[in-house]
């Protein structure tokens, strides 16, 4: 009897290991993040109106505030340092900016309302800029002369290119990735909503917003280096949205926001709200280079935007406040 029990245990152990080996899936570790008090909290009560993009740099955390038309800079401890930019059309002025990146000593802003990319120093001093014939949604500077712009497609005239790469003078170098097009402008826009994040080695990741588990890794020449399939243990939820003609279509959002730290991709998992919608969540999945979901990190509150560095998570909560978290123990 003991032998049979032992054999069953060994068989179960082998079966589990075999499955993990064959499918590449394993149960992700569960971590809890605790909130860290921000330094200089009362004085740092500068208000964020619609923070849409976060970028971490040695100078601090740069937050792009779309409604305030400026960039606010915080220390890594969360203390407000300074801000630059104001509403307008002149140099160093923004109109509904939607994307931000930093490369070396330069700050790159997707100035969506003015249909241009602006290049500034880290204090907001205008250096150069160029107009783009599209609606720039996000921007990534891989090198000083490799500026990748993620466009918001008009989705009215068939498929369009989503990625456009320019040099610092505004010369178009390459275009890549066709947008999804079904003729339903609202559904198509939700499908075409993507995230771009810088990866090590001058590369970047294109993360789909919905209906896809494939993260594309590309280089500065626009070459597709590989596709990472986020493993099946990552929860993909369904939501029925109203499409053209009043009929329902199903959307499977992958993430609400994302960040990269080293070779790990962090996806903010959308969460079911009380009224049945899917909104910003409080769980972040850590995805490895092969798409394996290595850990799930629970935050104490829901956040809409994230940036990650080591064990520190910077998040924007639902009241548009900057919050700092530290990943703790299991």
């Amino acid at each position, binding site marked *: 009897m003991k032998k049979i029990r032992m054999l069953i245990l060994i068989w179960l152990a082998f079966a589990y290991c075999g499955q993990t080996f064959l499918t590449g899936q394993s149960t992700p570790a569960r971590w809890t993040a605790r909130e860290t008090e921000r330094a200089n909290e009362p004085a740092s009560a500068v208000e964020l109106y619609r923070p849409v993009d976060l970028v971490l740099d040695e100078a601090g955390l740069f937050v792009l505030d779309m409604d305030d038309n400026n960039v606010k800079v915080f220390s890594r401890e969360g203390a407000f340092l300074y801000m630059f930019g104001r509403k307008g059309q002149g140099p160093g002025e923004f109109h509904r900016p*939607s994307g931000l990146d930093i490369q070396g000593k330069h700050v790159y802003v997707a100035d969506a*309302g003015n249909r241009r990319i602006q290049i500034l120093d880290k204090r907001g001093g205008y250096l150069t800029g160029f107009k783009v014939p599209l609606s720039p949604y996000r921007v990534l500077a891989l090198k000083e002369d490799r500026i990748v712009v993620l466009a918001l497609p008009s989705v009215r005239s068939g498929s369009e290119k989503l990625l456009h790469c320019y040099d610092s003078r505004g010369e178009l170098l390459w275009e890549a990735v066709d947008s999804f097009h079904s003729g339903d402008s609202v559904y198509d826009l939700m499908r075409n909503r993507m995230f771009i994040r810088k990866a090590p080695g001058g590369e970047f990741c294109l993360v789909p917003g919905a209906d896809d588990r494939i993260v594309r890794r590309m280089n500065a020449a626009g070459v597709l280096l590989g596709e990472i399939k986020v493993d099946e243990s990552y929860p993909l939820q369904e*939501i029925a949205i109203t499409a053209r003609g009043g009929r329902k279509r199903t959307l499977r959002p992958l993430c609400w926001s994302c960040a990269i730290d080293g070779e790990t991709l962090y996806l903010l998992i959308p969460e079911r709200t009380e009224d*049945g919608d899917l909104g910003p969540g409080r769980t972040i999945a850590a995805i490895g280079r092969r798409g394996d979901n290595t850990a799930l990190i629970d935050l104490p509150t829901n956040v809409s935007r994230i940036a990650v560095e080591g064990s520190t998570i910077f998040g924007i909560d639902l009241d548009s406040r900057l919050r700092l978290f530290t990943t703790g123990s299991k």
Partner: protein
Amino acid sequence: MKRAIAGTLAVMFFLSVFLCFPQSSAARARADICVDDWEACRTRALESDEGFIRTTLWLTVCDLAVGKCLLGFTRV
């Protein structure tokens, strides 16, 4: 007779150039404003922290509003 027809055509041509051209450029300027407002509306919808259903409804409103704007009823 030929002169009368030629004169009438010339007058019609100049009238169309001077009266219609400013209108078409104004219409183009209006269309540009409509499209700019539509893009602003869509970006705001996507950047709102509402759920997917509400964002979708908002995007639908943006589409309806741009249609009305292009037809000259209102601005987005």
